[in-house]
């Protein structure tokens, strides 16, 4: 029974000022509508330009559930296409990345396409003469996605032809991508390896919300971070220098007061970040030679400004999180209403000491891997929530921590770091991007079938 299709009012009804209905996490119909509306209306991360360094390089990705392929053309431009052959729909690229040479060749009937997507050749072409083929969409080659923006090498796309412009959509939130990129003395990041992949049997939004949930680490991660501290204190003997591993785990156990004062910043359209004043990444030991390189590249003042901005987690609505200080991006890829693939990427700071890359890789496997004890703690909570939300006793999820009546939507603000306002911010954006093209489809905007 379609409860939500063509019913923007019902969708909006799922989001109250400081509560959301459990259907946003457990209802398959809502998930279908997210794929149909939310993801196409939003700007989605596709990949990083360093993965496409040479002509013919390609990467594949999904936007919502739709497969896409990005390629570097001979003139240096990056193009994005739906990953399907215009003939019978066969995926044109099947690997996560590679180099296709001068053209893509469909493996089924050998139609070929230039790396800008245009149709290059069809075997036995005369069979199409006089058939009206030139008037079909197939004649245009691979279907191109027009709304693509590459911001400091981060490739984003919006599938909907019409919608919010990239700059308006992200606004000042791009400052986290700036900070991460500026942390390279050359102002350049590079993807050098595949991501860590981790399958989650929960709704994708649980992961996104968790990124700014600062009241869970000291509770849910007592088992991992707490044990790490305990074992280190017992085993350290005479060693005075904390190993990198203990430096990375330890701060998860910071008390509520720490998170309260470190602050959360929210931006319009559902973006926001934890760690405004300082963060769990603030006290990592210095890495030899790095500050010198930064000062040489940017000057004393600017170098300290860049390195002094130690944000914790930045959520780019709808489904990525960027950790500028540790050069990690987590992509929460929706598979089904209760299934999410998490791909966690590490960027190398080009020109910076290896030790920084080593630390980022270590952080990624400690926190974001299927073998990560911190990951085990989190996934257990998501799975239990996915189960618990099936109960009918109370159908609402409570997001009221530090709620103030009359909170304005779509503003920039800095607030107490234990507030759930960023989650409220995300759900406000969720309802907006879910319904912005539903209204158009209806004769009477906002008036849906009862």
């Amino acid at each position, binding site marked *: 029974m379609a409860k939500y299709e063509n019913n923007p009012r019902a969708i909006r009804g799922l989001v109250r000022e400081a509560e959301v209905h459990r259907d946003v996490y457990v209802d398959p119909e809502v998930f279908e509508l997210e794929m149909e509306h939310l993801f196409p209306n939003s700007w989605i991360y596709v990949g990083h330009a360093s993965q496409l360094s040479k002509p013919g390089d390609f990467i594949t990705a999904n936007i919502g559930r739709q497969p896409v392929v990005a390629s570097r053309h001979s003139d240096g431009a990056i193009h994005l296409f739906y990953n399907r052959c215009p003939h019978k729909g066969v995926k044109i690229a099947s690997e996560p990345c590679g180099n296709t040479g001068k053209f893509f060749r469909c493996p089924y009937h050998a139609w070929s396409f230039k790396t800008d997507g245009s149709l290059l050749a069809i075997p036995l072409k005369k069979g199409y003469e006089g058939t009206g083929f030139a008037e079909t969409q197939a004649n245009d080659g691979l279907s191109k996605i027009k709304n693509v923006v590459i911001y400091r090498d981060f490739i984003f796309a919006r599938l909907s032809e019409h919608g919010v412009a990239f700059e308006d959509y992200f606004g000042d939130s791009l400052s986290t991508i700036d900070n991460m990129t500026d942390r390279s003395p050359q102002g350049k990041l590079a993807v050098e390896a595949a991501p860590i992949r981790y399958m989650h049997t929960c709704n994708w939004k649980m992961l996104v919300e968790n990124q700014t949930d600062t009241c869970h680490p000291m509770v849910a991660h007592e088992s991992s971070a707490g044990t790490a501290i305990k074992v280190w204190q017992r085993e350290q003997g005479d060693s005075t220098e904390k190993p990198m591993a203990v430096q990375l785990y330890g701060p998860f156990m910071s008390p509520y007061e720490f998170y309260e004062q470190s602050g959360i910043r929210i931006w319009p359209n559902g973006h926001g970040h934890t760690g405004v004043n300082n963060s769990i990444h603030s006290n990592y030991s210095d890495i030899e030679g790095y500050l010198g390189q930064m000062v040489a590249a940017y000057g004393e003042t600017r170098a300290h400004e860049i390195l002094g901005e130690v944000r914790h987690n930045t959520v780019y609505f709808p489904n990525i999180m960027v950790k500028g200080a540790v050069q990690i991006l987590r992509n929460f890829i929706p598979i089904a209403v209760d299934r999410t693939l998490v791909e966690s990427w590490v960027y190398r700071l080009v020109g910076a000491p290896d030790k920084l890359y080593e630390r980022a890789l270590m952080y990624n496997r400690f926190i974001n891997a299927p073998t990560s004890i911190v990951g*085990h703690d989190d996934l257990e909570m998501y799975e239990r929530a996915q189960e618990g939300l099936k109960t009918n006793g109370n159908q609402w999820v409570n997001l009221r921590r530090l709620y103030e009546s009359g909170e304005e939507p779509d503003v920039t603000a800095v607030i107490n770091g234990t507030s759930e306002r960023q989650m409220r911010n995300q759900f406000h954006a969720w309802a907006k991007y879910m319904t912005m093209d539903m209204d158009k489809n209806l004769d009477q905007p906002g008036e849906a079938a009862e």
Partner: protein
Amino acid sequence: MISENTITDFVYREADLLDTMQWQAWLDLFHPEARYWMPLEWQQQDPVLQPSLMYEDLLLMKVRIERLAGERTFSQKPKSRCHHLLQAPQILACDPAAGIFKARTSFIYTETRGDALERFSGWASHDLVQVGDELKIKLKRIDLVNFDAPFGNIQLFM
């Protein structure tokens, strides 16, 4: 005198200690400088500047083991159990004079928790050294055949 049989027995015993959850006895098999490594690339060479699923020293292995028994380790309620099915180890080196002992063992590993059961296939490589009359693990390396696939939680040791 350490023979090929000694190495084979050692590999079987190590798996048995994991399956029977004799964690302390298992840890005692490791050299103080040992590493437990699960690469994330085919024939990976570098554990430090290439991503891995695990690359842990004894301190971190102790953290894992202590965590398993923690009162507030919610992901172990209910507890996980595991089972190793090993092929006969292939002895790659058995050189007492040089102190080099290496084996590679094909395995199927099962981890269960509650109603869930996950199965993994791969190869375990043991780099061993002699300490007194005993063998100790210097490096245990687990290469999964599908290291690049997305897994759910893997909470015990392969």
